[in-house]
């Protein structure tokens, strides 16, 4: 998150990666500093990643794994352009969900749980895997703007894919869990929910992250119109 709390970035590393943890952290720090996802931004992040490893002295298998690549999602919520709108940037299957008073307004990039079954595009340390970033409709497909105007209690939830699929599935089945997620206040509450749902085999076993952004305080701080 930026120091002025105007931008939140999360990244979920893919399991079949050489070092997805380092790559995800680099993507987050790069986007916090400079929120312009394009070819040169990505090339710079890849260079920073490569500089952390002495490729020539890796074993043959680590060289092969390094070359195959590391992969991660990127999900950013940005309010730096003003108080009324929130800009979402998403690559991959980490999910942003827009709620108002606990009710679902929108989700991005997916709206149906079934969409999580497809193989997502991810940002890679392997340049050849990133050609989609240079396509003409890249920004149109990977950015969204949500308006906070007129909302009584706007909240954006950011979550990794296992939790996103679980939440959308419950919503589609007429049993929304949005209010429950929006009321989580500490990690032990999240852990408790995750353990319960994994035991019930309704939540896939995977690294699970949830970030809750409330915009209510910021709006209350603003002077009302006379």
């Amino acid at each position: 998150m930026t120091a002025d709390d105007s931008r939140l970035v999360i990244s979920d590393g893919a399991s079949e990666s050489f070092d997805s943890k380092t790559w995800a952290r680099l993507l987050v720090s790069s986007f916090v500093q400079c929120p312009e996802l394009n070819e040169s931004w990505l090339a710079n992040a890849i260079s920073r990643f490569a500089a952390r490893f002495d490729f020539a002295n890796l074993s043959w298998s680590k060289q092969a794994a390094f070359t195959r690549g590391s992969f991660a999602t990127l999900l950013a919520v940005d309010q730096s352009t003003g108080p009324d709108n929130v800009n979402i940037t998403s690559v991959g299957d980490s999910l942003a969900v827009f709620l108002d008073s606990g009710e679902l307004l929108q989700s991005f990039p997916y709206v149906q749980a079934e969409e999580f079954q497809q193989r997502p595009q991810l940002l890679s340390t392997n340049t050849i895997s990133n050609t989609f970033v240079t396509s003409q409709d890249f920004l149109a497909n990977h950015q969204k703007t949500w308006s906070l105007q007129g909302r009584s209690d706007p909240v954006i939830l950011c979550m990794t894919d296992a939790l996103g699929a679980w939440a959308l599935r419950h919503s589609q089945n007429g049993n929304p869990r949005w209010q429950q997620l929006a009321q989580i206040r500490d990690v032990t509450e999240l852990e408790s929910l995750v353990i319960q749902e994994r035991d019930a085999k309704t939540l896939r076993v995977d690294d699970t992250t949830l970030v809750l952004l409330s915009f209510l305080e910021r709006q209350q701080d603003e002077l009302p119109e006379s």
Partner: protein
Amino acid sequence: MSYTAEISRSNPTAFLFLVDQSGSMSDPMNPNVSKAQFVADVLNRTLTTLITRCTRSEGTRNYFEIGVLGYGGEGTYNGFQGALGSSIINPISAIEASPLRIEQRKKKMDDGAGGIVEQSINFPVWFEPNANGGTPMCQAVTRAAEELVAWCDSHPNSYPPTVLHITDGESTDGNPEELAAQLRQIQTNDGTVLIFNLHVSPSSEEPITFPATETGLPDVYAELLFRMSSPLPEHLIRFAQEKGYKVGMESRGFMFNADAVQIVEFFDIGTRASQLR
């Protein structure tokens, strides 16, 4: 639901390759290479791919255990040698650590700017080509069953083992169909052992890929291999469809008269177990 167990270091899965090394495997696959050499190259490349998928910056994670049984004139034997020769099924980190040698080979690669470049790549070798004698397929399937009964007993919660059987001809030591059926009865709590059969042939006859029925198969030998093959689990159906194959719920893991491209894809699809944790 079967075939849904997550593959992890505490619950790895197993791949067991049965490779026909009978005399007819010395016949050419293409003008430059024999069937035996081509299959050995694809197997070695598949092992490299599996190792690469498991390798992280801190080392190779034991998501898979792998065995190779060759069969031919000398009976059925461990396809691995040296440090890997004392047991049939080895953890993948042990395989990573013990190639027989690492060759340097040329590979054409996309340069990311619309062009193709040739690069020198490491090509580890574990399995050597051989072509000698008859085709003791029954012996090979029996040996596979012995190995997998023990493996499943010690890995009760794992995704079941997958057997990939590569052959170019008919069994010379009896009818393996009943033995294959018994092999397919071996199970973990996540399902029964999968057997996928690949018939390799340089002929120009039309290849058959993942059929759903015996109807239309060219001869009784193809029908036999079909009956010996397991239906594809759902995630492999999806993966095969992504590769452009017409497959459905009844499709079996079986290719007949497979050409070079299909041999590579058979190995790729057959070893694409579900997501690693």
